[in-house]
């Protein structure tokens, strides 16, 4: 009789199982056959899924689908290597190793090692995200291009370059016991953090929610915890991701409008994800040293705990932004966020003054958020025509349709208020 797909993970829908399997297979085969074989390994893994497609259609899924796939991929890989070696007359007896039955621990270990290895490369973060998606997440090239809003060619080039630099590294994680992994984790945290944000960001620039990248980042973060369950930053990272993804359904309206926090229907927030977030936030407190990610997770938790917008504990949020500023140094984005939080504690013209200080070294990438914040302050201070002016400035710097719509809506909403103050 056929077996149903196992589904024992809260956010790992069956739709992502193949991807998860693919990452495991690539990692374990890379461990056994070396990073030099990566290209063959990727092909063998892909072909094993094609075999699964033709067999399972008729016979149902085998009892141990994962083992079935790994064996199929390994056999295909060995055949590929044999074919190559036959041409060059090299002895390949060493390759056809029989005792190949990796246990779960070994697989997880290999996955983490591959991830860390990618993050150790001296490459742009975006290349690291692309290569992680490619090797560890079972994303095909068109899927990566689609998720990151790139062309297929650009993705291919990036993968090619990363492969080259991976083959030129001598870093050997096999010799690295788990307890020494922690120092290498911070770069991986950064890659996963950005992968998650990329999912969030690209959602802004096209229709519908692009949650795939977010779920992948979460799955990979959970992988770290399987080997390092007490790692404080990883727990904080997962907390932050759960809090953010919990609120996704309320963020975009059915007409694909961006809904600001204030107007979000909080009943759409996913209570299970919020609970998960709280769970990981609790685990993350097991440290003396709070990270940036801890503080961001705490800010998100305050939003998630507020039953409505009015009862949000804004003073706490302001305090946490101040701590972030101490930790990270004052960045424009951080200050803008803090000013918005402060405006909800008490709107005042002082905030406009604080905003003005930012103008002298404002970079183009901040224009949009800056004018949005300025408009927001004017609205709270009932200066509607000035608010409209700032919204129009923001409109000039809006990158995507959804952002433009968001601002146009704001302008329409303040138009009647504008008249009442003018006369």
């Amino acid at each position, binding site marked *: 009789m*056929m077996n149903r797909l196992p589904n024992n993970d809260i956010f790992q829908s069956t*739709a*992502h199982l*193949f991807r998860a399997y693919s990452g495991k297979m690539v990692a374990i085969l890379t461990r056994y056959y070396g990073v030099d074989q990566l290209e063959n390994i990727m092909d063998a893994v*892909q072909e094993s899924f*094609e075999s699964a497609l*033709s067999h399972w259609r*008729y016979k149902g899924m085998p009892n141990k689908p994962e083992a079935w796939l790994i064996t199929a991929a390994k056999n295909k890989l060995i055949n590929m290597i044999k074919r190559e070696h036959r041409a060059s007359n090299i002895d390949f007896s060493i390759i056809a190793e029989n005792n190949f039955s990796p246990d779960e621990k070994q697989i997880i270990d290999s996955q983490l090692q591959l991830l860390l290895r990618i993050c150790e490369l001296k490459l742009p973060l975006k290349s690291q995200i692309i290569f992680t998606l490619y090797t560890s997440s079972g994303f095909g090239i068109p*899927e990566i291009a689609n998720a990151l809003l790139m062309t297929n060619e650009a993705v291919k080039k990036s993968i090619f370059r990363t492969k080259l630099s991976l083959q030129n590294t001598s870093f050997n994680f096999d010799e690295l016991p788990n307890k020494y992994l922690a120092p290498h984790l911070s770069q991986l945290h950064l890659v996963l953090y950005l992968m998650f944000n990329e999912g969030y960001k690209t959602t802004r620039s096209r229709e519908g929610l692009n949650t795939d990248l977010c779920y992948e980042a979460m799955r990979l973060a959970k992988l770290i915890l399987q080997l390092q369950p007490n790692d404080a930053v990883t727990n904080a990272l997962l907390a932050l991701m759960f809090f953010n993804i919990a609120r996704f359904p309320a963020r975009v309206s059915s007409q694909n409008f961006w809904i600001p926090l204030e107007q979000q229907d909080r009943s759409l927030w996913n209570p299970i994800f919020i609970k998960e977030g709280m769970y990981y936030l609790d685990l993350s407190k097991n440290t003396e040293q709070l990270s940036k990610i801890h503080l961001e997770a705490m800010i998100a938790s305050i939003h998630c705990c507020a039953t409505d917008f009015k009862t949000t504990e804004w003073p706490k949020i302001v305090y946490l932004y101040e701590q972030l500023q101490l930790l990270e140094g004052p960045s424009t984005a951080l200050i803008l966020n803090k000013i918005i939080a402060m405006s909800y504690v008490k709107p005042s013209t002082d905030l406009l003054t604080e905003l003005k200080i930012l103008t002298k070294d404002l970079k183009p990438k901040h224009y949009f958020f800056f004018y949005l914040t300025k408009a927001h302050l004017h609205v709270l201070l009932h200066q509607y025509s000035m608010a409209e002016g700032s919204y129009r400035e923001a409109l000039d710097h809006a990158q995507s349709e959804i952002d433009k719509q968001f601002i146009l809506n704001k302008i329409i909403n303040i138009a009647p208020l504008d008249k009442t103050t003018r006369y």
Partner: protein
Amino acid sequence: MKEFLLLIREDANYGQLTLEEMQADIEKHMAWVETLIAKGQFKDGNPLDATGVHIRGKEKLVTDGPYIESKECISGYYFLLANSLEEATLIAKDCPALELGAIIELREVMAHDEQATE
């Protein structure tokens, strides 16, 4: 009940699919077969390897299979149980392979003369 052979003819180039699409396809097929089993309409089914040979006529000329130009081939078969060709057609219309562009051929297995056919 009569027995029908369902042949799936398709361009078995699954490599073009993403892992998600592959998984979705397998899940659809498994759900379809499970329904058939539950209704007592499923007898057997098997995938066929894309490579094969063709042996022709008295000369017994062996070639690499019939479809040299195209990758299209019979990728698998099912034996279905149904009361009539019409009923079997309805069942076959739900076969998920159609969604990937397959062509389905449905043929009744001829009963032996000595068997009662109702």
